[in-house]
């Protein structure tokens, strides 16, 4: 499909430019101020409290680390290997859920969300229980087969491909699918029908019509996962270190979790990520915004594609995959909360309610639930509003600084959470001390941390929206705000709900962004879970994770009950 020159209406009235200016200043301030504080501090060589002295020691140490480049290469090849498998599956899955006539699409989408809710460490440990080369249950079962003569394996989770496998099962497929589904839903059925009427099959229609129309969403999701890959460490620490496999994320994690954290060197590595990703940030803007991908027009029609005889096999495959990435780990997580020692079925009485009793009897629990609901709920609402406004500026206006604004919104994704928290700590202590330790500060930080996903996903869906609807609204005399509210937002509602739910989940699970900013009074469930992990009461920590999952699922279902046409249904 040939991309047409961008022809959206420009906003030239004063009111519109004022809004753009305010949004630009606000976003630039909350994103750039903490980053600048971190960069300045990375040149500081004097101890806190001493007279300021400056140097490039942190930069030399970070970039001079001989292992750094190998760790970066490991991250890249992990990303490539994961992407090769996850992208085709995610695109096919998203198309089937959004466009094909299979049953239980909402249920399948819900299962994918469920896999996103689950605590990663528990899921990793569950996979270790299944495919540890010596003691994994699956490996043991295979070795009992009469024609198998192995002493270990055949599968080895402590390998490169073991790490790839866990990434695929955990988030790599489900997140991409979740983020692509709304964009697939927006595609005008006329385009698919035209292709099929011309005698083109479903697979070629998907390749030549649907995927090109999906380019903005695919480009944005690719870049999101590319920028995020540099921070991935949870799976790699458990499965990579025993085999001597280190990635960039473990480097940053180590610098931030040393007894004396080296924030200077960690900042250098974060800046390095921004520098590496910068050309892609600029390119995505050129390809995802400055071209035309309109699929929602005044004549748009949404109809599901009939799969014919393939319907039930496809349904079985898709449902099987969704169950595999959600119910299997969910079962493991639930089991962990009811077992005396997770994975040890050989005990005469392996089951217990003690972990639940301990957590439910914790006097901090209720306060943590309340704080989580306040922080995650507020962050979700603010994130939806911010994403809508900024995406509108990026896609629908000719505001001169919109390109700069677009690039700035990518920075929070590149910054490790703990550094983001530290940057905010400095700024708040310097300029707005009363905010320190309050829930409001946690809300602001979680909104900024989730800004990239929210804005970019709304943006990639907004470019599919035809300009003619807005033009008609304006011709009818409506100003920009009623046009935004009554014309632009309704077709985007599913994606806005997706952004809200996504932010709610991320905010409720967030530890790294808020750990330096929370006080005893602002403890959230995620911080309570961390307390149990450090204790170390691993099974009790998993109980907290299940409570978080239940709350998140409950919020999503309540939203659905309110007839909001949720992304999670």
């Amino acid at each position: 499909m040939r991309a047409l020159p961008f022809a959206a209406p420009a906003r030239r009235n004063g009111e519109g430019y004022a809004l753009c200016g305010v949004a630009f200043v606000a976003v630039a301030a909350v994103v750039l101020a903490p980053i600048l504080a971190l960069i300045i501090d990375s040149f500081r060589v004097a101890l806190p409290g001493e007279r300021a002295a400056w140097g490039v020691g942190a930069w030399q140490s970070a970039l001079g680390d001989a292992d750094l480049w190998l760790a970066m290469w490991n991250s890249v090849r992990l990303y490539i290997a994961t992407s090769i498998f996850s992208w085709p599956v995610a695109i096919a899955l998203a198309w089937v859920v959004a466009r094909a006539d299979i049953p239980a699409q909402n249920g399948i989408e819900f299962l994918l969300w469920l896999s996103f809710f689950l605590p990663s460490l528990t899921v990793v440990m569950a996979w270790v229980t299944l495919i540890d080369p010596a003691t994994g249950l699956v490996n043991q079962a295979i070795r009992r087969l009469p024609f198998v003569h192995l002493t270990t394996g055949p599968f080895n989770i402590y390998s490169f491909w073991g790490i790839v496998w866990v990434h695929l099962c955990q988030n790599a497929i489900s997140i991409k699918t979740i983020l692509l589904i709304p964009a697939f839903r927006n595609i005008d059925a006329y385009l698919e029908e035209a292709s099929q009427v011309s005698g083109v099959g479903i697979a070629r229609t998907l390749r030549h019509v649907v995927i090109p129309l999906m380019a903005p969403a695919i480009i944005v999701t690719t870049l999101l996962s590319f920028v995020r890959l540099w921070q991935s460490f949870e799976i790699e620490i458990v499965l990579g270190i025993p085999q001597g496999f280190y990635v960039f994320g473990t480097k940053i994690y180590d610098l931030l979790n040393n007894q004396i954290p080296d924030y200077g060197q960690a900042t250098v590595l974060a800046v390095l990520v921004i520098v590496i990703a910068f050309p892609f940030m600029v390119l995505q803007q050129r390809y995802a915004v400055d071209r035309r991908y309109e699929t929602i027009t005044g004549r748009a029609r949404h109809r599901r594609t009939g799969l014919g005889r393939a319907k039930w096999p496809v349904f079985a495959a898709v449902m099987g995959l969704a169950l595999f990435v959600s119910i299997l780990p969910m079962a493991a997580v639930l089991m962990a909360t009811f077992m005396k020692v997770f994975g040890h079925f050989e005990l005469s009485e392996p089951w217990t309610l003690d972990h639940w009793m301990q957590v439910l009897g914790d006097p901090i629990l209720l306060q943590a639930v309340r704080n989580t609901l306040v922080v995650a709920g507020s962050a979700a609402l603010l994130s939806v509003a911010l994403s809508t406004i900024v995406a509108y500026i990026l896609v629908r206006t000719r505001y001169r600084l919109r390109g700069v604004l677009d690039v700035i919104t990518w920075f929070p994704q590149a910054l490790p959470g703990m550094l983001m928290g530290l940057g905010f700590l400095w700024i708040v202590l310097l300029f707005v001390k009363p905010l320190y330790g309050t829930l409001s500060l946690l809300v602001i930080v979680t909104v900024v941390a989730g800004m990239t996903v929210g804005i970019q996903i709304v943006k990639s869906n907004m470019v599919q929206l035809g300009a003619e609807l807005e033009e008609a609204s304006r011709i009818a005399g409506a100003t920009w705000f009623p046009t935004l509210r009554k014309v632009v937002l309704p077709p985007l509602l599913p994606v806005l709900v997706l952004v809200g739910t996504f932010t709610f989940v991320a905010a409720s699970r967030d530890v790294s962004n808020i750990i330096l900013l929370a006080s005893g009074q602002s403890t959230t469930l995620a911080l309570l879970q961390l307390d149990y992990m450090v204790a170390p009461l691993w099974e009790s920590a998993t109980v907290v994770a299940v409570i978080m999952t239940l709350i998140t699922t409950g919020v999503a279902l309540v939203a659905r009950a309110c007839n909001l046409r949720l992304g999670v249904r």
Partner: protein
Amino acid sequence: MRRARLRLAGPLLAVAVVIWAAGTVADEPWQAEWNKVLNAARQEGSVVVSGPPGEIVQQLITSSWAKAYPDIGLQYTGARGTQILSKVVRERQSGLYNWDIVLASTDPTVFMLIPIHALAPFRDALIDPALKSDKTWIGGFAAGFMDDGQQYFYSTMAKVGSTMGYVNRDCVPTSTLSKVEDLKKPELVGKIAWYDPLQPGTGSRSTWVLSTRMGEAWLEDMLKNHGITFARDYRQLTEWLVDCSKPIAIGITNDVLSEMQQHGIGAHVEALTGPAYFHDLPAGWGGANEDIGWYEKAPHPNAAKVFASWYLSRDFQQQYAKADQNNSRRADTISGDPDPADALRPGVAYECWGNEAAVRQLKALQQKIKSWGVVK
């Protein structure tokens, strides 16, 4: 008559002495000061403490304090020292003084707070002279200081000796492993897991103690050439240990293991400790993450003094030792350690493996291990 007077004089004298003695005690300068501080602490209303994150310790400190001083609130934040101190340093740079007491380990506390003059001299927090008396503490009062200058950061708890790690006797018999040199036997290649010695914690300390006894060349060869598997997750290492996939685990804590053993898992796992593994190792001890310091410009200075005195008191030290299965350095407490051999004994000259000087040596060893390229 005279005899009768003399008969009365004895009891009268005794009563007079008692009255005089009582008056003397009541008038001890420290007690008057203590009463003044206690009243001021009540006026301040609360004390703000950061300390270890564990559920048991947190419960113990908050509930015991509430019983001892119900009219002085305790705001306790449990977290890793690194996280709390990163906040504290930035707060103090900005002129915010939110904390009264820090309970943490030598590293990072001494290295982060003393250079910025954040800690106040600890002796100033103790009003009762008995708390500073050498008789009260095994090895003397000053031996508890973790900082080089013996002024700011104090350890009250101590475990003697060191555990190098654990072995599962279900799959490694004593004939295969009974002394430290056996670790290099060819049949044990690929069977040893080691907690990443570059990470803070028990693992790095065990590795350092081992290097002081066996030499760095021995350690380098061990780590490089004997099929060691490194990991950073205590649970993962313990699982390998109990299921015999890596039946020797060096540098792990017994937190996960003791929980498993309560349920009968890993029943034949033994600690690698004693002369066979540490040769002529002189008795040594190390504190952990419950060492105490108080802040300069503490927002509740009097409540901080009351907390410090209470923390070092016999009653609380005894409770702590019991709950944490540890030993107080106070001479008048009973060991809470399941292994009585881990308790300090009066009259023995101990090395301290947890103070500032020892931590510096440990960090130097970690730099060397990094240069060997076995862990990154």
